[in-house]
């Protein structure tokens, strides 16, 4: 039986590897969901009613059902239902499936935040820009954009901090993220078995990372605090 001080570096190493996967999923989700969410928000604000209705329905379904189920559907559906296991069984396939599910899910959440931010800018701003002879793109970039950003930073930071924790759901399709790594020491891994503390210890990773994000978002909010309205 290894002593704790012998176990610790081994566990830390394994958790680091797991957290790297967590981080990768987090970043890929953001890179995909931030722009996709904007596109979805334009769809839901479209003046073409059938499009906006359709988009709103999809957003409602995705936001109304558990991400865990969406993960399972994305990962298993192609193989089990359509007999075409596009993801394969390996870690790369699991990651790709997880990324797709996370991007779609978070894009829907982000789209609602974007929509709230865009619709929250008073219409008078648009009209003031118009009567001053600005082009439509000038009105968007010079007048609305910063006001939208200021409105969406607080809800976005909430959602992004939730995303950090949500990445643990990818465990359900056996993605080897940090929780998976912590859990492996229960069953036995790297010569360590029956240990629960590595699983508890994974929380430290989440706390530290979210602490960092909270500080960064706080700074951004402060930067945008120079004006009100």
């Amino acid at each position: 039986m290894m002593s704790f001080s012998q176990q610790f570096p081994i566990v830390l190493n394994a958790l680091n590897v797991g957290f790297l996967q967590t981080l990768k999923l987090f970043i890929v989700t953001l890179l995909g969901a931030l722009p996709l969410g904007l596109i979805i928000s334009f769809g839901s604000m479209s003046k073409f009613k059938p499009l906006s209705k359709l988009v709103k329905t999809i957003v409602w379904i995705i936001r109304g059902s558990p991400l865990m189920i969406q993960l399972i559907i994305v990962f298993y559906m192609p193989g089990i239902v359509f007999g075409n296991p596009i993801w394969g069984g390996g870690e790369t396939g699991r990651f790709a499936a997880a990324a797709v599910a996370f991007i779609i899910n978070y894009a829907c959440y982000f789209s609602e935040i974007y929509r709230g931010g865009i619709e929250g800018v008073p219409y008078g701003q648009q009209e003031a820009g118009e009567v001053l002879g600005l082009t439509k793109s000038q009105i968007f970039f010079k007048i609305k954009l910063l006001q939208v950003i200021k409105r969406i930073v607080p809800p976005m930071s909430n959602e992004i901090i939730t995303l950090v924790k949500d990445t643990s759901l990818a465990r359900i399709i056996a993605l080897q993220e940090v929780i998976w790594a912590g859990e492996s020491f229960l069953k036995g891994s790297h010569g360590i078995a029956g240990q629960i503390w590595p699983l508890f210890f994974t929380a430290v990773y989440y706390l530290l990372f979210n602490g960092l994000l909270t500080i960064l978002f706080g700074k951004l909010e402060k930067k945008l605090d120079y004006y009100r309205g």
Partner: protein
Amino acid sequence: MAILEIKNLHKRFGNNEVLKGIDLTLEKGNVLVIIGSSGGGKTTLLRCINFLEKPDKGTISVNGKTVFDSDDPSTTVYKNIRKNRLHFGLVFQQFNLFPHYSVLNNIMLAPKLALKAEMKEYKKQNGASAAKAEKARRLKAIEENAKNLLEQVGLSEKAAAYPFELSGGQQQRVAIARALALEPDILCFDEPTSALDPELVGEVLRVLKELAKSGKTMIVVTHEMRFAKEVADRVIFVNEGTIAEDGTPEQVFDNPQKERTKQFLQSIL
């Protein structure tokens, strides 16, 4: 030649015909005050003139040049609207300053953007280095002009402030300076003082009076009768989408022809 000529202007929202054939001409340097009961179409008329609403029928000309014609689709293309609308300026009831720009930058934003577009052309014709010098010179002129306008509305010391730091009356004066910066031929005001606390109305009306004195052509929707009597060259009473009364302030206020006008004047006194 009249500076503004509106002919047979119609506008409806759904089944609600809000403007029922407005005919109006305005001479350069005149101040036109528009009065009328709520829902009569005053705002809609100003919004049509400023291309914020598209009239269903009619024409609008400035200095004899047609800027809107319901039968000429080219006058409803955004690109053309953008050029034509610069004949007009509009000051809103709710100011609509840009909250994220300082007072000075609120005033300079549109002129600077216009300059940027102009300089692209200039660069093509005169080369990069000439364009650079010209641009610096013109930017300085824009800033100079913005500062002069701020002085004109009595807010020089607020150049660096943000709108949220200003009172309503100050915000409205900045909005006026912002509109003036583009040197519109006709400056329109939609109830510029009705969102203000009573003690702030005077400072805004003073700016309007000075503008009038300096010969600016203005259209002002307002219920400030004393202001109208003092400043207006002409008053029209808009009622249910038509011009019900049209004349000098004395004619309209002291000797109205229509029963409806008399009722309205009594109701606001």
